[in-house]
């Protein structure tokens, strides 16, 4: 018993200061890719290499549309490795959670030459632009009832609707002494009846569709749903197929989407706090 206490004292404080202080990340952490759309000459190799089609191109006559959907991105870095023009850079950005899935998408249109090289950027449509850190201004977007009722104390029910269990590895980490979710008044509960938030992972398999819907119904109002990871947002690498629906919002209404594969614990925290109006959206890396 004495030894256990001694060990506790020797260990000291290990908890992260996030979100009040910046997180401790490795220099080598691979976050979201950033694209120099203005000067990009050839998106073909990068799009060809992208395993999830987060980055894709469509040529129609002499016009190419390049689409980047951060919701499907698994931060693998293949686009950056395949691109020969230096237009792709891997960043350490991870606070990508948004309320509207469409905010995760960038589309750029180019004129292309006969050789398929992009000649100039005709137009670009960006999802969410980088936002100044201004929580107070953003709180008004949040449903008032949710902020008032759940803002300071939140019970989460996690639902795996077909994930590979990678998201579960990181969600479980939220409970460890480093991330210590309870310090923020947030905890995981065993029953949807006790829950204010559903944290949904996986592409929603046909075999989990009904269970997810029932869990959602069992959750009392007001409630929020957060879709976690590339699969939860849009099916990820599994996509939509005979066995999957291709994202949590195909079965239940979703309030916040957290990109990543899996999202690191800080990213999960950001998304959960965003849903409560305690943190703001940060926008895409531009």
């Amino acid at each position, binding site marked *: 018993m004495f030894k256990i206490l001694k060990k506790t004292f020797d260990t000291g404080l290990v908890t992260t200061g996030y979100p009040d202080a910046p997180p401790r990340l490795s220099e*080598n952490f691979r976050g979201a890719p950033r694209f120099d759309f203005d000067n990009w000459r050839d998106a073909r190799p990068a799009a060809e290499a992208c395993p999830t089609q987060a980055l894709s191109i469509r040529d129609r006559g002499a016009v190419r549309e390049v689409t980047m959907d951060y919701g499907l991105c698994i931060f693998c870095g293949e686009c950056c490795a395949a691109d020969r023009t230096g237009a792709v850079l891997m960043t350490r950005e991870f606070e990508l959670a948004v309320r509207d899935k469409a905010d995760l998408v960038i589309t750029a249109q180019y004129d292309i030459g006969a050789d398929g090289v992009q000649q100039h950027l005709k137009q670009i449509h960006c999802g969410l632009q980088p936002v100044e850190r201004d929580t107070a201004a953003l709180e008004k977007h949040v449903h008032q009832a949710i902020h008032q009722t759940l803002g300071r104390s939140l019970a989460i029910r996690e639902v795996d609707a077909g994930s590979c269990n990678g998201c579960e590895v990181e969600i479980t980490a939220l409970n*460890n002494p480093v991330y210590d979710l309870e310090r923020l008044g947030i905890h995981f509960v065993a029953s949807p009846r006790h829950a204010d938030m559903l944290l949904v992972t996986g592409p929603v398999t046909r075999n989990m569709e009904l269970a997810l819907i029932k869990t959602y119904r069992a959750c009392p109002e007001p409630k929020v749903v957060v879709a976690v990871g590339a699969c939860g947002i849009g099916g990820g690498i599994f996509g939509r*197929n005979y*066995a999957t629906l291709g994202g949590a919002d195909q079965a239940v209404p979703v309030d916040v989407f957290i990109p990543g594969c899996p999202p690191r614990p800080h990213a999960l925290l950001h998304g959960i706090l965003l849903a409560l109006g305690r943190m703001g959206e940060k926008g895409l890396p531009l």
Partner: protein
Amino acid sequence: MMDNRTTRLDEILMAGGPAFTLRLKSSAGEIYADVPAASAPAASAYLRSAGCRHAAVFAEDRVAEDLHYYIYYVFEHPDDTRYLVLRCGVEPGQASFPSLAAEVPALNWQEREIQDWFGLEALGHPNPRRVALHDNWPDVHPLRKDFPIDTVLPPFEGEQHVYRPTLGEGVFQIPVGPVHAGIIEPGHFSFAVAGEPILYLQLRMFYVHKGIEKRFEHLPVPRAVFLAESVSGDSSFSHGTAFCQAVESIGCVEVPEPARRMRTILLELERIYNHVADIGAIVNDVGFVIANAHASRLREEILRINEELTGSRLLRGVVCPGGVRRSWDRGQAGRVLAALDPFEREFNDLTDMIQASDSTRDRLERTGTLHAEQARDLGIIGVAGRASGQDHDVRRDHPYAAYDAVEIQPPVYQEGDVLRRMQVRIDEVRRSLQFIRLAESGLSSGPHRASMPQLPAGEFAIGSVEGWRGEILYWIRTAANNRIARCKVKDPSVNNWPALVEAVQGNIVPDFPVINKSFSLSYSGTDR
């Protein structure tokens, strides 16, 4: 080291007589022989009597090319580093094959999977009901080539599965899941209990089936690696490596030495972070919460090391056909090695703390026992197998990466209880730390990735890895244009669920979580 263990299977085949004369092909890692489906039971019985173990059975639709479906039986023998694969052709008109499940219970689910995926009947199967497709699915066979991957199936009508009835005075049924109380994957458990003790447990899996094997058939090889990494997220690197090894074998590509060492290091880091987490979770389930707090902190340390080395906490996006995508420099390696020493000290503190707790030991010892004979008959492998006397370890039995340079010596216990399953993990973490230091110390700055040729179409090979749970097996057949015609994925969880069913019998319901945790199986790896 030795590795001339490549003659035993030939001797066995030779002694087996004319049944095995039709050699399909041989390579450094595998021997293939064609046998008629009707003689599969006799061939299996002979091979088992000669000391072979059934590692897997799966099927393939080659009707368009060869006018046949094929059933593949994968065997291994402790004295040979190769796998032996028997192939049986099945004509579409016949659409059935003889079941071996009554003799070899380890094949029970895998044969039923073949029924579900391909519509080939396992004749004489003792329990031929659906396993992978739930009972409310229409009559489809998704791995047939004529089934489009994007088929939209009509809405399913509620639950139709019939569980074995629970009869008798005072006997109750407790249904649990698919959504469980903790942060774990979904599956349904149906307990029959008399008072507190569990009479029997029925499992129902495949809630997270997401069409992975079909999906492989729609991706080019370089992109398919990422799908392999998503079969079971906590084993991303092991699954990715097994996939790449099969591809490398087909392409006849030698992985450079530095890359083999780097793979070894990352495979062992994956083992450590999962084992530490499980050790913590096991003691947590019997109330030793503070030990779990330390264990989960230690896991976090390893995840940080992973990120420092590879950019990804779960080691994703690192392995690739031919080696590894990214190398690391001296500075990174130095920081990681420096972090391993305090990790090891703290790990020893953790195990001392656990071992000093008599009440913890008391709860874990003789809880959830799986006897050695049961484990052998059910074909239990990996951590659970070694805790019940089954001495299998792919790192030694079919060496890959840099494992031929080390002596593996897996920890093997006979008692088969929760305590031993935890002890296997403790022993393995210590060994893993040694392997990492050893592999790192000889790491030279040579190339870390061999270039891959365009793969020949129609070729096939096995890739296998001892993941932290046990043997992960991939069988791949290539198609034209660097694509995949068939990718069979066998996670060790598929083998080991029946162990849980046996081990819980007679235990009390409140001990189920700790018993389940001590097996720590992957639902996603099972369901794919």
